[in-house]
């Protein structure tokens, strides 16, 4: 049989104090795993309970975050967060966005550039056709910060420019079914100038019989609009005070300070961050509700897990007894139970997270398929931020420890003889 006993080379000395033997982690994990496998149905139900809890939370939160991100994305699409709107409409302060003010704003720390605009009314004439519409005077910086969706031609709104960009609607009303054919044509216009656009004016005035070449057409099928160079309006009509401005900050972090400085000059400022803040505030409340809902679900899962582990401990009391009698230490027994809880929570957590995210993604795909059938654009409303993933895994770890702690402590404290006598 080849059986040998080390007859004389035995463990003649028991281990010295301080060199305490410990079970290997791999052995502890294997025993924990085997124990879960021997009670497959119970283990699957418990892991399933955790998975459903985590899955529902992941599903709800990923939709919550996704919708929030989608709304913010739509709102900020044409309003970058590093752009500050300046409005010269503070009734308490008689300040004007003239050249001096533009220079002072430009000198504020963190300002990259500043653009100006005025808007006013006018009348456009082309042969026998004529129509009322809006005239915007903008400079190059403004046009770059608020780009037009050009469909034909292009115009540089710099100081020497003398051409206009008109909307497709205006081109259509002037008799050009093909808007691009208006490019290079000269159109006549009258302009109503507000007194606030001219530092020397004492009231509104109308300047008629003007002409301007069309350099480009942009996509706007609703309104009759012509964009003209701000400098041209200055040269032709004495415009030297803008009604609105746009400031681009060097970084988004500079925005709050720049706003304060500009407001100290007497202007009103707006930034898309204000709207985003309101949106985030709204979704924060929604997420709080979802978290409360998820916490209730997880509490039920946690109770199921605690119940399973407690029953497992009761069923294995004699096992704990014999392990201790044969030399297992409190730490070994503690690890055995805590790892069993960890296995349940990790399996439940990972499968729940993947399941919840998968279902949410599937809902998104189905929604987009239906939307595309009706001619709408696809949207992505499922998002899980990295920190939420970390939070989920942190929560899973907490769940494992919290629910495993009590049974593990109880098991590890059990006296070997009491456990062996347990009925």
């Amino acid at each position, binding site marked *: 049989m080849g059986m040998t006993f080390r007859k004389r080379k035995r463990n003649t000395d028991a281990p010295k104090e301080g060199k305490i*033997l410990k079970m290997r982690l791999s052995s502890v994990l294997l025993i924990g795993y085997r124990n879960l496998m*021997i009670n497959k149905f119970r283990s699957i139900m418990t892991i399933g309970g955790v998975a459903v809890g985590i899955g529902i939370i992941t599903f709800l939160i990923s939709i919550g975050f996704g919708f929030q991100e989608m709304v913010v994305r739509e709102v900020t699409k044409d309003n970058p967060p590093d752009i500050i709107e300046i409005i010269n409409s503070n009734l308490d302060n008689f300040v004007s966005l003239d050249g001096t003010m533009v220079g002072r704003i430009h000198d504020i720390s963190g300002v990259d550039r500043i653009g100006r605009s005025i808007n006013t009314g006018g009348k456009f004439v082309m042969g026998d056709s004529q129509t009322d519409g809006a005239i915007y005077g903008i400079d190059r910086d403004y046009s770059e910060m608020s780009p037009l969706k050009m469909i034909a031609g292009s115009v540089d709104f710099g100081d020497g420019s003398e051409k206009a960009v008109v909307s497709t609607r205006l081109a259509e009303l002037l008799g050009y079914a093909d808007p691009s054919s208006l490019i290079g044509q000269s159109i006549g216009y009258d302009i109503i100038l507000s007194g606030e656009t001219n530092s020397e004016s004492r009231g509104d005035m109308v300047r008629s019989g003007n002409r301007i070449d069309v350099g480009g057409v942009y996509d706007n099928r609703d309104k009759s609009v012509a964009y003209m160079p701000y400098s041209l309006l200055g040269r032709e009509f004495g415009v030297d005070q803008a009604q609105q401005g746009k400031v681009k900050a060097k970084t988004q972090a500079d925005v709050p300070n720049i706003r304060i400085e500009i407001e100290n000059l007497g202007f009103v400022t707006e930034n898309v961050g204000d709207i985003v803040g309101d949106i985030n505030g709204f979704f924060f409340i929604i997420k709080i509700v979802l978290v409360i809902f998820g916490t209730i679900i997880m509490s039920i899962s946690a109770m199921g897990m605690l119940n399973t582990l407690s029953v497992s401990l009761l069923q294995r009391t004699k096992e704990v007894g014999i392990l201790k009698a*044969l030399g297992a230490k409190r730490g070994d027994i503690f690890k055995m139970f805590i790892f069993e809880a960890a296995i349940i929570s990790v399996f439940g957590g990972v499968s729940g997270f993947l399941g919840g995210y998968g279902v949410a993604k599937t809902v998104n795909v189905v929604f987009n398929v239906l939307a595309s059938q009706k001619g709408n654009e696809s949207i992505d409303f499922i998002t899980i931020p990295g920190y939420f993933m970390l939070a989920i895994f942190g929560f899973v770890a907490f769940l494992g420890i919290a629910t495993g702690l009590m049974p593990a402590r109880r098991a590890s404290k059990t006296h070997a003889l009491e456990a062996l006598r347990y009925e």
Partner: protein
Amino acid sequence: MDEEKDIAIEVVDVKKNFHVGENEIPVLSGVSLKVKRGDFALLVGSSGCGKSTLLHTIYGLEEPSEGKVYIDGKDIWSYSKDWRADFRNQSIGFIPQQSFWIKSLTVIENIAIPAIIGGKGFHESIPRAAQLIELVGMGKWADYRPYDLSGGQQQRIAVARSLMLDPKFIIADEPTGNLDFKAGQEVLDLLTEICGKFKITVLMVTHNVEQYKYGSRIIRMRDGKIVSDEENMNSRERLIQEYPDVKDDPSLMEHRAA
């Protein structure tokens, strides 16, 4: 000096009291004994006389109220709980009355469990467990679950488990208490054979007089005290005189004759 080295287990004036409510019940009342190396010592007496308590005190599970327990010259109750756990694990094989198992592990893995507790991995412990399961004649049951086996088979496996770490001592608490006569005899035959072959000191509790034939020493207890401690005389007349009910047991006589 040589005589001292020859002593494997020494119990000195051990007392143990249990508290039941406000009452203090003495279970061991100043027990002293010495077990020599290679002894197959039987601790006998009627139920409730304190023999299991004494065994657990020697095994390091039940702390005595007073007195000392020396194993291999070490005062085991002067060490920490964890040290005693390691000492049990590394030096003493334990066979309880009822075999307790890790339900989720196979028979062979259960035999290996003392080594696993001692810090070894399953892979490196299984070969030794495989040798032991063959030694006790249970090789074909290696991959079964222990609770699928009969009581006698389970106790054979318990013997194998007790030998896993090549112990110097085996402590057995009525190992055949739940078995029928034949199964019990097979287990004890196996135990005496292995322990005799490998010079393992055995201290076994029994209240079955039919098993006295296996002991090289018989220590009798009554009411928490040792009333006699003597080498087994192997005397038929003496056994019959003291225990008339065993006179018709031929196996007892065969064993003595051998």
